[in-house]
């Protein structure tokens, strides 16, 4: 691709590209998100390639692997444009049929269509699927359409328009004003006003300035950043270049988890292409503005999501946070003013510049503008990435979009914001969610992980899980976080083991208070949240564990036993054969028995029993 030297050239290039692209062009898109790939979408893609070569010789067919469509539950997803026919759970075996019928003949294959569980009717078109219908997809929209490895696709669909607008028509201050006016808040979790942060960095003394894209999405159960970088890396880059121009930085870093190989790959490609096109590097679009981006791989430390630790890591030291002030905006990388924003924040920028702050202000609530992306996971029918306008209610997300709880079980609570967030019980299911309301409820926007819990989820166990996580991820620098979380974990473990005693809950409160108030960095300061919020809403479960040594959700190993229900057991031996500790005995055809002494409560027997003859109590 030849370099683009001026905004005019960019528009020209865009015109050419979109001319080449005929809207009625038959295009088969296969979801290439990590989720769908894990389901085997690559094999499907290959098969499609072969089949199309073999069968659809006469009509020109575009085949492309796109980024994540978000509906991971039903992968691999295949969408056929322009009719936007939506197939889910596609297997290699289905491919010949898809090509012969849908691609060549244009017919729809009913068996591959999505069935709305609520109405039971089949849905042919992607945007009509309830999962998509009720979303407001600003950042994820393009994921399903463009090929993330092609800058042409991005440019064709308006990409880098904001950059050229900024470089040709706006002064850096104006850019900052626009972002400030849009009230865009940092999507990293804390929700600090992006515009304000930019201004601080711009006005901080010193020539050299840096900016960083925080893509160290360490929060378990959240993967929207990954999905954006996989599906639309150029928008993140564009946001960063604009930011660089506004702040006065000429060097940017993307600090990305190395657990995300695909995202890294796509980002690398994108950077290379952008450089080739002169959208990165010296004198971008003839504006005289230089900017370049480097990738830095995280080395597997959750704490590096914390900005000072992240910077230490980029500088080549252990990822230990340092006290603030001085804030990165004053003294960041190598002591120079540095602006750090999350992937989603950067991805928002091109939109705001393109459509303007006023447009952006219309979306969302008073305090929180724009959209929020949640990865809705756990006990939910439609696991996937959900983007909604700020202010949407949990009910909309979980039931209208998420399709409710599997097996019709009852919704119990949702854990938002991962290790630094908290639980929200069903009472609050109708609260509109934005930064403020979540904080009020004792949770936190965090990175947007949303774990749905049903009756089978033990809240104490969940709290313990997150405490284990922070305990493992604590860098160990400051006393409250290192030892305090350990103390909390031990106490929680004791409770789940049935060794809890009176006073444990008070002790947890005391520790939590201390850790929150006096830890060195955000990791510690928010670590107790999962415990605090579960204590707030599910104290009874704690007490059940402590006082009557009972796990209401039947999860905690030491408080449950597995038993064979005599009148259901057919003596098929399946459980007996698979029991890892040979705790199950019984002849073929006779009722089996579980030796509680040997049983390690792995639950395998319950999983395997086709007759539901294993009960927990």
């Amino acid at each position: 691709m030849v370099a683009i030297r001026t905004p005019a050239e960019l528009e020209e290039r865009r015109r050419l590209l979109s001319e080449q692209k005929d809207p009625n062009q038959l295009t088969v898109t296969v979801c290439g998100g990590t989720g769908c790939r894990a389901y085997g979408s690559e094999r499907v893609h290959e098969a499609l390639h072969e089949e199309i070569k073999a069968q659809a010789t006469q009509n020109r067919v575009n085949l492309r692997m796109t980024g994540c469509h978000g509906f991971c539950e039903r992968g691999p997803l295949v969408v056929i444009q322009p009719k936007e026919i939506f197939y889910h759970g596609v297997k290699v075996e289905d491919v010949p049929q898809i090509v012969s019928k849908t691609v060549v003949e244009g017919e729809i294959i009913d068996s591959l269509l999505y069935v709305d569980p609520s109405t039971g009717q089949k849905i042919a078109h992607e945007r009509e699927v309830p999962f998509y219908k009720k979303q407001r997809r600003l950042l994820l929209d393009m994921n399903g359409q463009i090929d993330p490895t092609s800058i042409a696709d991005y440019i064709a669909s308006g990409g880098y328009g904001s950059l050229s607008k900024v470089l040709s028509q706006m002064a850096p201050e104006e850019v900052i004003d626009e972002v400030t006016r849009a009230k865009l808040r940092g999507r990293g979790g804390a929700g600090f006003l992006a515009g304000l942060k930019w201004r601080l960095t711009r006005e901080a003394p010193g020539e050299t300035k840096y900016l960083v894209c925080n893509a160290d999405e360490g929060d378990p159960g959240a993967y929207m950043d990954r999905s954006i970088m996989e599906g639309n890396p150029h928008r993140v880059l564009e946001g960063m270049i604009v930011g660089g121009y506004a702040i006065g930085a000429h060097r940017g870093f993307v600090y990305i988890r190395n657990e995300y190989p695909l995202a890294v790959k796509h980002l690398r490609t994108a950077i290379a292409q952008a450089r080739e096109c002169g959208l990165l590097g010296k004198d971008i679009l003839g504006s005289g503005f230089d900017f370049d981006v480097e990738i830095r791989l995280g080395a597997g430390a959750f704490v590096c999501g914390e900005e000072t630790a992240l910077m230490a890591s980029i500088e080549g030291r252990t990822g230990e946070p340092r006290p603030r002030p001085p804030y990165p905006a004053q003294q960041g990388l190598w002591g120079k003013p540095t602006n750090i924003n999350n992937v989603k924040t950067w991805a928002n920028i091109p939109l705001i510049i393109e459509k303007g702050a006023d447009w952006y202000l219309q979306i969302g609530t008073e305090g929180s503008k724009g959209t929020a992306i949640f990865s809705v996971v756990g006990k939910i029918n439609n696991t996937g990435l959900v983007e909604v306008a700020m202010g949407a209610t949990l009910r909309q997300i979980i039931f209208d979009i998420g399709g409710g709880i599997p097996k019709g079980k009852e919704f119990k609570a949702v854990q938002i914001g991962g290790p630094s967030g908290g639980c929200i019980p069903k009472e609050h299911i109708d609260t509109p969610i934005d930064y403020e309301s979540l904080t009020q409820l004792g949770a936190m926007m965090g990175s947007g992980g949303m774990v749905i819990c049903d009756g089978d989820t033990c809240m104490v166990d969940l709290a313990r899980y997150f405490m284990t996580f922070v305990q493992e991820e604590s860098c160990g620098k400051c006393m409250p976080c290192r030892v305090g979380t350990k103390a909390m974990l031990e106490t929680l473990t004791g409770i789940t083991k049935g060794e809890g005693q009176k006073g444990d809950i008070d002790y947890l409160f005391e520790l939590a208070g201390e850790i929150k108030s006096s830890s060195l960095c955000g990791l510690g300061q928010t670590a107790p949240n999962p415990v605090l919020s579960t204590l707030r809403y599910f104290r009874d479960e704690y007490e059940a564990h402590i006082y009557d040594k009972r796990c209401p959700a039947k999860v905690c190993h030491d408080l449950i036993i597995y038993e064979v229900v005599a009148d259901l057991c057919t003596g098929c031996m399946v459980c007996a054969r698979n029991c890892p500790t040979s705790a199950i005995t019984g002849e073929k055809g006779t009722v089996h028995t579980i030796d509680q002494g040997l049983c390690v409560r792995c639950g395998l027997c319950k999983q395997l029993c086709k007759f539901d003859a294993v009960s927990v109590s």
Partner: protein
Amino acid sequence: MIHLTIDNQEIGVEEGTTILEVARERGIFIPTLCYHEALEPYAACRLCVVEVEGKRGSRLVASCAYPCEEGAVIHTNSEMVRRSRRITVELLMASGEHLPLVRALAIELGVAEPRFRLPPDDCILCGLCVRACREIVGVAAISLVNRGMEKRVGSPFEIASNVCIECGTCVLVCPTGALKLEDIVKEEKAVHRWGSPLDHRPCHICGDHNLEAHFSVDYRSFIGEQASGEGQSEG
């Protein structure tokens, strides 16, 4: 010059001074473990936290690293501060109950005994030794190894450091006496396998061949007199 209130006394301080520095100059006692005048503040032990009043309520900051701000209202010994310090010390006691230093702090803050225990350990991970070795001596023979609960002070590969100069500064700054020089210099002194000991070059000529001369001149009398003097003192 900026002005602030610390423990209800209004004072003016130079910009850039930390709360701890100000307090110390004013003879206000703030306990610290990981702080050393000659080193960059580390803000890890959290014992030096003080209460700073703010719009959204009071909060705790580590006084060793927190710069004085215009108009700040600071309490170095409020209930909030004491509560925090008590728990910090209690956590310290989890593995350091046996350390005189920790016990002293516990008594000072009125902590009876910890509700949570870990295997006893002399090291409280204040990081002073590591920072001293790097910042003062400029050698960096030791570093903090591992992360979280496994974190500890160590030399590379847990064998004797081959850059340690045995200056003892780490031992000197260690507040608990956890660190012994041999921890760093024990065993064969090399990460390279071929480290071989210094050859002691014997000296061929006597450094004191001029001593006699000295006697013969000024000091003979002195020695003689001395001898007799000694004689007398023994009687």
